[in-house]
């Protein structure tokens, strides 16, 4: 296989990279010598590394050369790991292979997350007794359900069984279905072993189909189904480099872009080496991102990145926020994901619009919450697009109720939590916890009428370092209460929400904040980092920074269109190349 042009261009890094370096230094690192050095904030778009807290490539490794164009360091990807299928991958694969009814019978274990991503946990955690037990039960339930669809099974057999002892027909099934479910052709030894599984069952129960069923539930428990097996091989043309094989790439590509198993067509293409070059991967990806599954997959990813999965279980004080309910919370999530979907796919426009789009999609209760209609029943559960007036200060996901509710307290706002989310989830700049000996309670009482007054103590040591990075962001959003309702006045005080974010500029309200953020390279670089983490199942390491920097440039060149980023990512060495397993 030939890998072409990994390093298309070199470009001078913008001033933002240098600003980032100083941000980290402004925050505290450790208290009483108790906090180890790793828990300080790490600066920059690629802040988190698996092995150390070193500065980022774009911000750091070689900043002295910024005038002449940073020479990418040697690209050196992380060691490749087995990746467990996520629950939705398992479920969707069963659906595509064996039908909706079979998928409904599937009960894979619940995913866990590490570093904010289920995909990262899936590359690290090991199976437990409980997981193997669930997979065993799930496989049998799926197989039993699948056997109720004789047409589909006949299609997979490719032969007319002559009786329970028809080993050739079992072998035909094992060969055909095995390739689909394991996403690769079986070796002849595997064909023998799985044919024997089918024959044993058929002969014991005197029933050919019992053999098919047993083969199905065995295939579904195999590590070759449960793990995305990514081992890779040295590039024949450049043995120093290791790439995923064409057939491994089919799986990585399908699960990343479509949340499901590769189709028979993609497998056929891959088996003939059709996914060996970046150009070939790109061509397939360009088709995939147009599929409906790509929209759902991106929605699942953004629900995770924006921490919207469990928004229904938010605790809110019913006296302060009588409107809040699990149903309303679910609608909030839907609103945010609708905007993401609209910008990425329907409008297919600059993805940064999710930060300041002057419109949104809401149902009756949300429209009423925003004051767009007087009565929720006017719309009920009908979803509709609304333009948002500029004076509402709403626009983009930071003016939406999901973010404003999730990053608030039970009966008040939390400028700090809102600012922390923006820094961490949108800018990929980790904020350290408060020093262990600091009491984090805010002052209360009649003399403190606004959050700005209550947070004043954050302007002194030891708080100011980190809080100056977070609080101004949230204080500029104080017109939105703890569930996102607009308010001009709090406790009789007209709120002053004009704020300045050092290095970014002045703003007042969610839409202006979004506009500041959309022009910030940290934000677009963070979009790339998060997508990469999800796509590859690990936090970027230093050796991967050069490829990510090139992706940042490609994203910019594509006018920040998400579909283009998806395609650029999978055609990048960041996705195609892997490190030797360790």
């Amino acid at each position, binding site marked *: 296989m030939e890998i072409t042009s990994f390093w298309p261009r070199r470009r001078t890094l913008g001033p933002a990279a240098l600003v980032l370096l100083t941000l980290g230094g402004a925050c505290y690192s450790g208290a*009483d010598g*108790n*906090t*180890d050095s*790793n*828990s300080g*904030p*790490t600066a920059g778009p690629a*802040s*988190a590394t*698996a092995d150390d*807290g070193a500065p980022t490539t774009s911000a750091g490794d070689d900043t002295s050369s910024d005038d002449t164009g940073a020479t990418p360091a040697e690209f050196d990807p992380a060691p490749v790991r*087995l990746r467990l299928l996520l629950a939705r991958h398992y479920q969707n694969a069963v659906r595509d292979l064996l039908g909706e009814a079979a998928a409904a019978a599937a009960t894979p274990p*619940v995913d*866990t*997350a*590490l*570093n*904010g991503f289920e995909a990262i946990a899936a590359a690290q*955690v*090991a*199976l*437990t*007794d*409980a997981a193997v*037990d669930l997979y065993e039960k799930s*496989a049998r339930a799926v197989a039993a359900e699948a056997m109720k669809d004789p047409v589909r099974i006949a299609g997979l057999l490719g032969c007319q069984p002559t009786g329970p002892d028809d080993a050739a027909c079992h072998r035909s099934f094992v060969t055909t279905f095995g390739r689909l479910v394991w996403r690769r052709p079986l070796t002849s030894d595997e064909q023998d*072993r*799985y044919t024997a*599984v089918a024959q*044993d*069952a058929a002969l*014991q*129960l005197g029933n050919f189909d*019992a053999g098919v069923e*047993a083969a199905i539930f*065995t295939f579904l*428990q*195999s*590590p070759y189904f449960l*793990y995305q*097996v990514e081992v890779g091989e040295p590039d024949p043309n450049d043995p120093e480099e290791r790439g995923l094989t064409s057939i491994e790439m089919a799986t990585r590509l399908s699960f990343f872009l479509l949340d499901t198993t590769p189709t028979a067509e993609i497998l056929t293409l891959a088996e003939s080496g059709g996914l060996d070059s970046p150009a070939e991967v790109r061509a397939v990806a360009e088709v995939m991102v147009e599929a409906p599954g790509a929209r759902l997959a991106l929605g699942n990813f953004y629900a995770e990145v924006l*921490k919207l999965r*469990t928004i229904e279980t938010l*605790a809110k004080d*019913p006296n302060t926020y009588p409107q809040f309910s699990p149903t309303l919370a679910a609608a909030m999530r839907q609103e945010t994901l609708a905007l993401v979907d609209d910008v990425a796919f329907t409008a297919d426009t600059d993805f940064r619009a999710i930060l300041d789009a002057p419109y949104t999609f809401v149902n009756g209760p949300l429209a009423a919450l925003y004051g767009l209609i007087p009565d929720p029943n006017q719309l009920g559960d009908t979803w509709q697009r609304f333009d948002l007036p500029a004076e509402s200060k709403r626009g983009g996901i930071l003016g939406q109720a999901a973010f404003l509710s999730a990053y608030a307290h*039970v*009966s008040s706002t939390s400028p700090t939590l809102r600012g922390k989310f923006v820094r961490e*989830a949108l800018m990929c700049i*980790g*904020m*350290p*916890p408060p020093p*262990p000996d600091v*009491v*984090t*309670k805010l002052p209360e009482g009649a003399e403190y009428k606004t959050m700005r007054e209550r947070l004043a103590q954050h302007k002194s040591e030891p708080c100011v370092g980190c809080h100056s990075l977070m609080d101004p962001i949230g204080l500029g959003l104080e017109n939105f209460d703890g569930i996102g309702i607009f308010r001009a006045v709090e406790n009789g005080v007209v709120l002053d929400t004009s704020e300045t974010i050092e290095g970014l500029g002045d703003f007042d309200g969610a839409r202006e904040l979004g506009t500041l953020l959309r022009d910030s390279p940290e934000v677009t670089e963070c979009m790339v980092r998060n997508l990469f*983490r999800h796509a590859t199942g690990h936090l970027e390491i230093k050796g991967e920074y050069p490829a990510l920097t090139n992706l940042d440039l490609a994203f910019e060149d594509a006018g920040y269109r998400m579909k283009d980023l998806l395609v650029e990512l999978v055609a990048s060495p960041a996705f195609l190349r892997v490190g030797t*397993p*360790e």
Partner: protein
Amino acid sequence: MSRFHLSRRTMLRGAIGGTSVALALPMLDAMLNSNGTALAAGEPLPRRLVTWFFGNGVALVDATNPGAGLRWGPAEQGPGYPLTPQLAGLAGVEEYCSLLTGFDIKAAAMHRRGHHDGVAGFFSGHPFIELPHADNSYSSKSGGPTIDQVAADAIGGQTFLPSVQIAASKRVITSEGPTLQFLSHKSPDVSLPQIFSPLDLYTKLFDSFVPQDDPTKPLRLNALDAVAEDVKRLKLRVGKADQIRLDAHLSSVAQIRKQIEALAPECMQPMQPVNTNEDTDGKEPLDEVNQIMCDLLVEAFRCDITRVASFQYTGSVGYTVFHMLGQTLGHHDLTHDTNYNDSVDAATAHTIEAFGYLLKRLKATPEADGNLLDQSCIILGSDASSGYTHDVFNQPCIIAGRGGGALKHPGIHYESPSQENTSDILLACLQTVVPEATQVGSDIGLSTTPLSAIQA
């Protein structure tokens, strides 16, 4: 009552014709010695170990002065200590409870992060593993096995299930890593999920046995054998880190295989519950779930289906709402705001009542000449002394049960004069089920000195 001096193994061989399936059977009188104090063959009665957790610590005596201590234990020490309002739920079983105060979690001496320090350090004695900071500010993995899994590793092979993980409240934090999400860990990358639904727990404990004549049984075993073969072959192609994961996969395949082969215990089955721990109008059925979970666990001990359990009543940083107390806010937020000190206190008392229910059910269940509580050691702990301070000194701790006679009875209130290591408590408890154990934890959390104050 006649005693036949029938050994448990004899019984098993008789039942399945000499094949060697390791399986526990209920404690029938026929298997006991003439005193009813041990098995006829001279083996001691089975002993049980439970870790029992509630999140966010307890209330402060004075919300404006964290130094003034906790609304928790009495001043009096020794046996016969009076029950404070917070501990009132122990009435009736107080002689089985040792209250331990003034201990320090040495494994958390680096004071890296509230809650993580408390829960990981207390229940494992290993400093937790901090994960690199990415989009989320803080997350960690357990630094080593929790005490229940150390015990399960040693004695779990003797029963149908090596251990069981139970939770009552579903408001558990999932965004800060396995340390806070799970109570039981076998290793940093093997955390054991808890069962939230009483129906699921019933199924796991009592409804997973495959009848001997089930025609699908050999097929299921065949499937697992093929899977094991696949795992072994895959192992040859991957790196060391993945080999460790695949070893865990293989051992779980072997465990599930053994469970499919196992005989159902000849033991009165409890009623199948209908409760699945669903909210009603956003309210968790916490009390009902706790009771059913306790009842099922006690039956599982009685039938010797498992001997090790972890019980997460509420989560670390958990947002459980004690709505039955008229509260509307999540527990974590209550504990971090001194205005709600009284609400936190009420939640503590309610929590201890839930704990007391388990103890009372164990005590009310006879085994041999005593009861199940005589043969158990239950470790109650939290993740902070109070959520407000996040202090890992003087976290709430109760050791309940007689540990098969290894623990002091009646229980005492012992206030450590020297801020002893909580790992010492764990080691004393571990030795009730694994007498040959010599250490618990690692690094700064290591203990080689079991707490003698609670040993009989």
